[in-house]
């Protein structure tokens, strides 16, 4: 599926969009990390919590749980939220 990558993470992907697959958000992020080593830990902490200033939207709806199911036709947008000056 299509994954939209925020500017802060393009040092990993080199592009604003990329592809990844998986039946859940957790699986998609694991797949992303296999393609771009280290990218998952910048977004998700060691307790599997999405980091404070990262937001994930699936087809325009915000998703807060890594267990959220995904379909191959879904579009995942990862956003860097405001974090101060």
């Amino acid at each position: 599926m299509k994954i939209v990558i925020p500017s802060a993470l393009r040092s990993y992907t080199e592009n604003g969009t990329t592809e990844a697959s998986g039946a859940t958000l957790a699986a998609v992020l694991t797949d992303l990390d296999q393609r771009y080593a280290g990218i998952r830990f910048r977004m998700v902490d060691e307790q599997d919590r999405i980091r404070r200033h990262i937001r994930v939207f699936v087809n325009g709806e915000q998703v807060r749980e890594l267990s959220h199911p995904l379909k191959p036709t879904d579009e995942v947008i990862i956003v860097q939220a405001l974090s101060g000056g």
Partner: protein
Amino acid sequence: MAHNTSKSVVLMVATRKGAWLFHGSEARHAWRIDGPHFLGHVISHLVLDPRDGRTLLAAAKTGHLGPTVFRSTDLGATWKEATQPPAFSKAPEGTKGRAVDHTFWLTPGRATEPNVWYAGTSPQGLFRSEDGGMTWKPFSSINDDPQYREWMGTVQDGTPDGPKLHSIILDPRDPAHLYFAMSGGGVHESLDGGRKWSPLLKGLDVVEGFDRSQPTFHDPHCIRICPSNPDRLYQQNHCGIYRLDRPSDQWVRIGRNMPKPVGDIGFPLVVHPRDADRAWVFPMDGTSVWPRTSPEGRPAVYATRDAGGTWQRLDAGLPREQAWWTVKRQAMTADASDPVGLYFGTTSGELWMGHDEGSEWTCIARHLPEIYAVEAGELR
């Protein structure tokens, strides 16, 4: 008689918005700037590996992204990210685990431990790498030890940008002997390679009204071991300046000998590379609401040449008035040249050098971001 025996000194400057290297000329009167590296990243510590004089490790995060560590083996020309940065163990289902907010402190291993590095994090955690900083694992049991977790307190108990484990010190003579400090949580020592740790708190003051027997109320800001005499440690604490001469376990408050109007509150402390009687501090205003500025807006370094018996003010070349910046705990250091050069970076983004052990200060750079750490190394 001092001789100008300066190897090629490089300064590693870590800031809230990136990192810079400053390469000194042979006389250390001119500096070539290299940077920014990691522009926009919060760099808590940038350290040159003294075992090869080429490898750098940087503790990094950004406002949005989680923490990581970068490694360069070519003095910053290229960087490689850790594949497994410092991270706490995953908590059992149904319990709330901790997450590393940022790696705060990096200590290279001993000369006899190639590729070993130690890291201290916020919130307090102790980590070790055996592959040059590419993968990190929790070191010893303190990260999950119930007693240590109690002494660490909660995130709300720590400093404004999070409680920290810092001052990871390796006894160069004994591979089993280590120290670390926690703000808050006190000073701790291991004699068995990090398997067991004990508080090292005798003689240290705490804020009035609190129980000094409890490590959680202790706030060591910076601990240094003397390279010329590893039995001697100095400490800048939230409550004073101290010296410890082993095998004694009794800290002595040498800050009582500081001028009373200045006091003995501050964050950084630097020791002389060859003379264990010499050390330097940068006092700050710790009165009333703790402004954490230079006292009266007149910044100065204070030096001792007799192990804390007396202190001398060193402010030649520094602003005489209305200078309200201060220096964080990792942002002051010394090189190993003769005569020794002192360096500090300010919260207002200025990098200063104190020539000849701080007798004359000059500003190396202005207009950098807020400086978090300054280290001096020698290139090979």
